[in-house]
């Protein structure tokens, strides 16, 4: 299966929701559309589902143009944030709905439903109505309903956002297992970078209707291409070239060519080390204790750096420290 987005463009009145998006989803990969609200990720998902039409650009499935195929004939499975189970149907009826629409035989539907109920570990709830289920259970049923018709693509629209933290973590694992097991390519929308990193084979980081960067979770975290990605995926120290040249000359080796203003150094807080030293040039400004780690803000050479460390004795606000940098962990991003 290959889903190809070719320069998809969508505007709402004056607002450009998607700015010529091109992307390819292949094989049985799990792709996350990640970005802040308003970045266009949901719009993109809805266009893929066929619930919205693009203004221009093409959407190809295995080379066939989908533009003229209405949502209900695309054969995709979708799960929404709001569960959206049919309130008047039982769990089993909900799961079997897509097959009933396709006029599948009754016995086949029953067998498939039973199989899926087993898979989502809710076989005892087949005859319940949705309101009798917890949020996590409802979302599992929604997932089963989406995969029941053996979809060519699964679309997940922030499926975990309405759940509380514990349930969310459990279901996250289950979604990943289910997807691996079925081998159905999946596109998920989320604004939670942790969720995206845990689930995805590839992350598509979006901002303001454009794709900032596409890549494996490690790529995006360790080698962010743009300032936005560096900022959005975890926290980082973004440092201007002239300051780096002066303070951390070791980092200049990896810098791409270009004018000073074109690139910023991206230094993750865990790649900075502190050493309590009376003669240190840096001063500790603030320490936030987070249990297993501490986040320390230090003032050094006219800038403030965010540093993440294990416990270092003698680091208290006002203390003098020496700063050293792990040059290999530094990347450069376009400003």
């Amino acid at each position: 299966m290959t889903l190809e987005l070719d320069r998809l463009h969508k505007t709402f009145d004056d607002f450009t929701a998607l700015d010529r998006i091109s992307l390819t989803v292949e094989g049985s990969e799990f792709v996350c559309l990640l970005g802040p609200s308003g970045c266009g990720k949901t719009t993109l998902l809805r266009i893929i589902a066929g619930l919205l039409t693009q203004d221009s650009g093409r959407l190809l499935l295995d080379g066939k143009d989908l533009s003229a195929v209405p949502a209900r004939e695309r054969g995709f499975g979708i799960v929404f944030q709001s569960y959206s189970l049919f309130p008047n149907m039982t769990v089993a009826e909900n799961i079997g709905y897509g097959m009933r629409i396709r006029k599948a035989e009754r016995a086949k539907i029953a067998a498939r439903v039973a199989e899926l109920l087993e898979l989502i570990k809710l076989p005892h709830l087949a005859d319940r109505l949705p309101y009798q289920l917890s949020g996590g259970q409802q979302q599992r049923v929604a997932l089963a309903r989406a995969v029941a018709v053996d979809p060519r693509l699964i679309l997940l629209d922030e499926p975990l956002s309405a759940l509380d933290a514990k349930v969310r973590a459990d279901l996250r694992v289950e979604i990943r297992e289910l997807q691996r097991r079925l081998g159905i390519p999946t596109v998920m929308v989320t604004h939670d970078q942790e969720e995206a990193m845990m689930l995805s084979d590839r992350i598509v980081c979006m901002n303001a209707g454009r794709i900032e960067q596409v890549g494996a979770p490690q790529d995006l975290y360790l080698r962010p291409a743009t300032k936005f990605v560096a900022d959005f995926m975890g926290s980082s120290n973004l440092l201007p070239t002239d300051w780096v040249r002066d303070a951390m000359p070791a980092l200049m080796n990896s810098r791409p060519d270009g004018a000073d203003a074109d690139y910023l150094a991206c230094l993750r807080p865990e790649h900075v080390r502190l050493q309590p030293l009376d003669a240190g040039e840096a001063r500790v400004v603030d320490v936030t204790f987070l249990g297993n780690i501490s986040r320390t803000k230090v003032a050094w050479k006219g800038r403030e750096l965010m540093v993440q460390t294990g416990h270092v004795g003698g680091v208290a606000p006002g203390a003098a420290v020496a700063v050293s940098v792990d040059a290999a962990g530094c990347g450069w991003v376009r400003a």
Partner: protein
Amino acid sequence: MSIAAVEVAERSGFRLRRAGNDRLLIAAAIALPCLALLIFFVFPLAMMLRRSLVADDGSIGFANYVALARTPGILKATLNSLTLGLATTAVCLVLGFVLAYTMTRTRVPGARIISAVLALPMLAPSLVLGLGLIFLLGRNGLISGMLGKRIDIYGLPGLLIADVLYALPQAVLILKAALAHADARYYDAAEVMGAGRWRQFFDITLPNVKFGLLSAGFVVFTVTITDFGNAAVIGGDYAVLATEIYNQVTGQMKFGIGAVVGLLLLAPTGIAVYIERVAAQRQFGGGAEGAVPPQLSFVPARDVPLSIVTGLATLSVLAVIGVVIYASFMRLWPYRLTFTLKHYDITLSGGYAPLWTSLLVSVVAASVGTFLLFALVYGIRRLPSLPAKIVYLVATMPVGVPGLVLGLSYIFAFNIAGSPLSVLYGSALLLALCNFYHYHTQGFLTMVTGMRAVPPALEEAATCLGSGAGEVLANVIIPVMTPTLISVFFFLFMRSMVTLSAVIFLVTPSLGIAAVSVMRLDEAGFVSQAAAFSTCIMLVVCAAALAMQLALKWLAARGGRR
């Protein structure tokens, strides 16, 4: 893969031809109700406007307007209507607020009984209240007899009381809804900051219901100045616009003047509706999510006076309606109070036929109305935003047209020789349509609210699973909206059973309806028979109300929640 892939019907193009059917369904859902709205609402009003500009000699101009200004009594009737409307509004707001406050914010017992009693006037034709007042305070009234002196109830006093009792329940409903949206956290904050109870009342309670008060005020005013039944029964010599317009048209065949008065009556209600709408929009977003309901406590200094006022008001409503039922079984009111059924033998021409006509008209109005409203609300969502806004606007306009005016306008639209539409004139179907469009807005808004409860994601989920428009309708929209459909059906049925002002112009000697019969019986002096006939109407409407409650309860039990 551990799961055997299930064979499903060939995916690609497995129902392409159905896309055309979907489009047809949606087009019909938009076209049918819009066309009906044009023919049975917009067209009659346009015809009335035209008729007001055509003088009796056929010339076009403002001759009718001049003639109206010269018609003796019109100015007086207008002033009388305004006086009555303002007085009724003032009384209803104060009383309505007290009742609503008592029911929502205090622990005065019996809120359910009060609600039930207050629902009674809405289950009966308005003139039943006038009738009841006459039985109590009229020349042969029960209370007049006890006091041993003659009370002159006919005219403004009687009209005021009857209209207050008629409009009060509607005011209470609106104010209760406004008062129900309370957030205890405001009161807690005020309490902590040291505000006393009165202070909290004036700083929190009142400001939060100001739009409710405004809205209730306009509803009461509109209902009062356009009510026909009470003016006919208990108005006496106190001429009001509603009766004046009837006399001009039915009595003196002055259609041109009737059209002008009809248009003029559009003004106050139109303004009222407009202000109410603006107010409603401004109130939007006022209620915070997750409001904490206030803890109710018993405060004697507040609750004792409140319960006395509430008790008296409730008792008055109960007495006025109860006495009508009671009197219908009494041999000779008020002299021989022995039980008899003889008044149920209606001697006026037609007997009970008008009741059956009303029943038929109401069933048709409710069925056709529910169907058209559902189609309209279903179709309107698929329209682009500008046409949708226009349709929405037109669909909500009928509330600004008093029944009296709508009925009158039907004469100009459907009583024209040679017009193909004139076949409808004098038919029960036209009465049903008139009643439906009279209450179009309320039904429409209920339907819109019901449609909003259909989660868009649910429809999208069904679509992605392969449902066509018809399947989405059957599996998602209709199941979610069943309670709404039931409510709208019974609302239209019950209103259609009791309304008088719209259809008074459309009834013919061979096509009478129940509420008109009551009026005719009363005019003819058969007051006890009028009471008996009223009781029958109330019985039918109460049965309908009961049926609705049962249906909704059954649905709720079956669906688990809702």
